[in-house]
């Protein structure tokens, strides 16, 4: 494989349906014999060209292992990793046209900002003039022109982050890997960098694979998200899919707040089902792909997709607690069957229904609010 075959215009138009990375049946096992642990348990996923793709999951779910396998810092025990149709799994990292932004940035402390950014191009044996031009371009892209001559120890965390990005983008990789790059920044800077990252991805047209455990970060930045747990990918979809249509309990629970209700399936038609809740109320719910009906099911409803009302509603209970959050208010309700249910209501000045502890309320579940889980 030629490493330097990725020259050309910065703006690569997205080719719909073309896959930048295809992970096929990849397993990664650490240790031997009895002490064997599968960090990745037969993972398959396709990442499209020019996509902002996020691997989301708690620590130890295998997301960083998968990233390391794509970068070449480790090799899969089994399976293939295709980069534009070529298996890169057995290649060492320096032969893969893929660059990484490290969690600790890993800037070379004995080099200046400009030398750091030019390192990759230099290793590729590019002529000096081309390197200098590209470094200047990258400095401009991340707005660091004035600090080019500084040592990396003389710039702030946010600036180091920008240099790390510029350094990884300079050789025009086919795919950019980002390993929790924002976790070391404070809240405000993190928000800024989230927008910055989206801008960079848009301007460079490079496929980004982003690893994070922060669900909010994943939802706001990604084109698609893969939710991982215990070495497996549980669900892949757009942020809206993942949030509104979680297919499994772990996904529903890990991302956002959710109400879980036990239900009995009455009838199924065209991806939807009529279900009867414990309270006897009958509602309509969406079925996940690949659902195998066996009568019982768990239904999830997001707190903001339900509404608390003084009279009526699909189910009812008693208000246990009311928590004010500024933009909205959370009403915690103990249902008549003993389960808890949270409703989130938008706040408006001088308006809106207020609830008190101990008050009996009904809950209206919207038409498209309920989702059935696979497990």
């Amino acid at each position, binding site marked *: 494989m030629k*490493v330097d075959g990725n020259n050309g215009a910065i703006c690569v138009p997205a080719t719909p349906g073309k896959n930048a990375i295809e992970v096929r049946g990849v397993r990664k096992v650490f240790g031997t014999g009895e002490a064997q642990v599968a960090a990745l348990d037969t993972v398959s996923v396709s990442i499209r060209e020019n996509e902002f793709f996020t691997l989301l999951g708690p620590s130890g779910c295998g997301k960083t292992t998968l990233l390391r396998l794509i*970068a*070449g*810092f480790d090799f899969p025990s089994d399976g293939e990793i295709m980069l534009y149709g070529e298996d890169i799994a057995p290649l*060492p*990292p*320096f*032969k893969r046209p*893929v*660059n*990484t932004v*490290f969690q*600790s940035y*890993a*800037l*070379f*402390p*004995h080099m200046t900002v400009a030398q750091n950014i030019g*390192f*990759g191009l230099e*290793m*590729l044996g590019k002529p000096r003039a081309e390197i200098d031009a590209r470094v200047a371009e990258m400095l401009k892209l991340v707005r660091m022109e004035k600090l080019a001559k500084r040592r990396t120890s003389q710039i702030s965390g946010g600036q180091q982050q920008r240099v790390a990005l510029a*350094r*990884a983008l300079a*050789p025009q990789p086919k795919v950019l890997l980002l390993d929790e790059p924002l976790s070391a920044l404070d809240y405000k800077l993190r928000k800024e960098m989230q927008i910055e990252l989206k801008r960079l991805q848009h301007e460079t047209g490079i496929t980004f694979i982003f690893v994070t455990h922060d669900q909010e970060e994943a939802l706001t930045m990604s084109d698609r998200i893969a939710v991982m747990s215990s070495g497996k990918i549980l669900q892949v979809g757009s942020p809206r899919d993942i949030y509104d249509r979680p297919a499994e309990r772990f996904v529903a629970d890990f991302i956002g707040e959710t109400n879980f209700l036990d239900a009995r399936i009455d009838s199924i038609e065209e991806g939807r089902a009529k279900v009867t809740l414990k309270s006897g109320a009958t509602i309509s719910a969406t079925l996940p792909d690949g659902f195998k009906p066996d009568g019982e099911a768990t239904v999830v409803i997001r707190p903001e997709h339900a509404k608390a009302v003084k009279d009526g509603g699909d189910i009812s209970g008693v208000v246990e607690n009311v928590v004010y959050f500024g933009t909205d208010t959370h009403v915690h309700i103990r249902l008549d069957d003993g389960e808890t249910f949270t409703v989130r209501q938008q706040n408006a000045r001088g308006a809106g229904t207020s609830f008190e502890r101990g008050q009996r309320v009904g809950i209206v579940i919207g038409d498209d609010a309920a989702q059935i889980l696979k497990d």
Partner: protein
Amino acid sequence: MAKRFSIRQQTGFTAIAAACFVLLYVPIAVLVAYAFNESTSVSEWGGFSLRWFAAAWNNDQVIDASLRSLKIASSAAVIATIAATMAALATTRTRAYRGLTFKYAFINQPLMVPEIVTGVALLIFFAQIKIATGYSGLGYLIAAHTAFCIPFAYLPIRARLENMDLTLERAAADLYATPWKAFRRVTLPLLWPGIIAGLMLAFVISLDDVVITEFVKSGGQDTLPTYMLGQIRRGITPEVNAISTVFLLLSVVIVTLFFFLSRKRD
């Protein structure tokens, strides 16, 4: 007055520290002072003079031994440092495995085996080689010094490698650097302070050695320390003090120089 709590303040600590410093520096100060003695005694002051420095300077045997010492120390230090750097890379850039600790001990053998044992062993070993090859040059001394200098060079280099962020090498590899280029452009520049410290230690240790040199050297291969030892057996004049003073000055200058060099690189 109430004293602020501090574990530094304990009864007797100051006295013990003072005693240690006296033992460390007073004998050396006396030795240096008598190097400038006019008389031939090392204990009776006969006025200020530089005559013993002049005597040492004009003593061909002293110059000869000094040059030999420098030759052996610089060769041994350089070879030992290169070997130690490779050993340190091999033992740190690896996952921990069974037997790694044993390997550390193996490399650091000269720190554990008594010098006299090594001396005798080398004497016998080299004697056989000498008979077989007929070669009797400085090579034996350089080889022996290299061997016992390795752990002194190895320890600071390993410490530096262990504290280095491994992600930096990974980042270099990610940015298309082959293992050799990653070493040259990232690991080595960051390792310099450790290598310089190792080189310095190895040099000073070699310069200083008596026991092993005494066993390994052939006739006419005196180093400065073994020459001085020989002289003292024949009765002390302040010439030995003068040589010691220059030797001391040389050591201090080297250590200070390398100390500043390694600080600057950091």
